[in-house]
């Protein structure tokens, strides 16, 4: 087997991020493990509420800290453990080594500052450039992202831009300091189909031209198939299946993954109804016993109600947590 250890740029081990609220403890991320390799696009897949966004936020410790806390686990980047390092070290990494792009570009930009101000602010924070060089760099970035008349656009306010443009601005902003890792949280979810295609193009280009290592979060398997190299399927705060995208699509092992694939509408077939996975995502305050997926699993066995499934490595770097494979 090829050793890929030296190619790993980020390693998340047994990450547990809990939120201590008045109504109870929400175990948003409960033992997630994966590694990101240089130049690859790793997708975190799952329904809303499975913990993928919190995982992403945990990498840079961006969740609200009075209720949230990383109770266990490590996030190895470079020589640091991001789960434990000081705020100062973390701030040097944020926006410079690791950048994150949020969905809802509508609200992710500060409405009372021009987009020029916001991009330049980040550039000047991390790079030793004076104002006019920083400004030039920002303009270059914007035009690379396909924003027309980038120089004029610098003095626009966010509400003057269309949804797709705002998303591009966000991506441009995140790339402004040449990060090693880009985390994208559902960048295509809140936009319409044409913009979605454009954004996916941007990410494809990032991979080919810049060899950017990306963590791409989505609930849409179709997107995963288009741009992902490897995928981590998440459910109930845990990673349930990890494999290369081609493996996952052709040979899904976990029943949840198969369910997700079946949900994809296929235009070539005629059907009366769209398939969906029965049931709803579990209430994070009241997780089911044993395997979190068992209430909705078509292949659930008796042991699934009692014990949490162990992690099993099958062939070709394919990991799955399911009692079916013990």
């Amino acid at each position, binding site marked *: 087997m090829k050793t890929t250890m030296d190619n790993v740029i980020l390693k998340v081990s047994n990450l547990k991020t809990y939120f201590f609220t008045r109504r109870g403890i929400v175990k948003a991320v409960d033992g997630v493990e994966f590694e990101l390799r240089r130049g690859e696009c790793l997708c975190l897949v799952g329904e809303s509420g499975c913990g993928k966004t919190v995982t992403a*936020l945990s990498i840079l410790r961006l969740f609200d800290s009075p209720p949230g806390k990383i109770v266990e686990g490590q996030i190895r980047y470079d020589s640091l453990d991001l789960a434990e390092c000081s705020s100062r070290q973390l701030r040097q990494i944020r926006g410079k080594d690791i950048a994150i792009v949020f969905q809802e570009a509508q*609200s992710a930009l500060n409405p009372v*500052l021009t987009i020029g101000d916001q991009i330049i*602010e980040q550039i000047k924070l991390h790079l030793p450039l004076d104002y006019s060089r920083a400004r030039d760099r920002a303009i270059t970035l914007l035009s690379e992202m396909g924003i027309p008349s980038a120089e004029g656009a610098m003095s626009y306010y966010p509400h003057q831009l269309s949804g797709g443009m705002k998303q591009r601005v966000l991506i441009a902003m995140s790339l402004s300091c040449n990060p090693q890792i880009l985390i994208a949280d559902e960048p295509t979810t809140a936009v319409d189909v044409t913009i979605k295609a454009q954004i996916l193009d941007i990410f494809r280009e990032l991979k080919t031209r810049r060899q950017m290592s990306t963590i791409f979060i989505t609930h849409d398997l179709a997107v995963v198939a288009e741009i992902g190299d490897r995928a981590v399927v998440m459910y109930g705060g845990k990673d349930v299946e990890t494999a290369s995208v081609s493996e996952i699509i052709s040979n899904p092992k976990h029943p949840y993954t198969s369910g997700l694939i079946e949900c994809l509408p296929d235009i070539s077939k005629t059907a009366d109804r769209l398939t969906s996975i029965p049931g709803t995502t579990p209430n994070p305050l009241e997780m089911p016993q044993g395997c979190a997926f068992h209430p909705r699993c078509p292949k659930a066995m008796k042991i699934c109600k009692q014990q949490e499934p162990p992690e099993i490595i099958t062939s070709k770097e394919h990991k799955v947590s399911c009692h079916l494979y013990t």
Partner: protein
Amino acid sequence: MGKSWLRDYIIKRLIYTVIIALGILTITFILVRVGPSSPADKYLANLAARGQDPAQVTAAIEARYGLDKPILVQYADYVANLFRGNLGWSFSTSMPVIELIKTHWIYSFQLILLSSLFAAFLGMLIGIYSAVKQYTKTDYAFTFLSFIGISIPNFWLGIMLILVFSVKLGLFKTYYDTTLPLFSLDNLKALVLPVITLGTGMLAGYVRYTRSAMLDNLRKAFVTTARAKGLPERTVIGKHVFRNALLPLITIIMFDLGSIVFGGAYLTEIIFGIPGLGQISFNAIFANDYPVVVAVTLIGTFLVLLINLMTDITYTYLDPRIRYE
């Protein structure tokens, strides 16, 4: 597109302001004329003791003040007079009301200005801190204190402060000396208690508004983006969150200024003997000198109108979402 739209808006607002101004004048006029005692009666009561013939005096006064003319003419005269700066004649001090105003307004202005600065500055700081540290004991303490602050009757607070600091402790003097320059150390010392009195209610209000405006913005997505950029927390709060909170805050603060402050300043001046417009109105009440009372009311009201207008325009100009439609 931006500039001419702003100009149109200003013109629209000015017209509206003029309409409201006319409404204010009309209501004041109606009040004065409809009141049980005509302006002559009250002066008469004073003169009766000096042995002049009531009937003659009434006729003379009515002729002098044009009270024998039809109502609409009186109204027109009234408005015209106001335009020319003629606010009437003060019976009790024997000078034109406008002169009285000119010599006394500066003291009210000083009091209100210092109190507002004190309240706004401190209030915003505490409000920001309270919002950032939500749910901590400090937050609860400040919230509770600001509750007390808006409930405490400001004239009673003034008296209590005098009792504690002047009478019992002898720290501050309780009178204001107009012979000294405005910002002399002595006068400023005399203003400490009045500013605290007038400022406390405002302060508590500002703490609440700032805290609430900050809380509204603290959980928004752009704040997380700002942190994700690697900005230090104080920049995130101070530049990003506060600027968003500031906009609606300014509006609330300015409107509040009108409704609460002038009443509070009136009472504070009386308690501490500050020779401002509230004081002269108070003196006029006892001398039955109605033109002064009316004038002070009108001035206060028109100031509020002006402040409202300026706030509206400033807000429209500052909020990029409105300016660039």
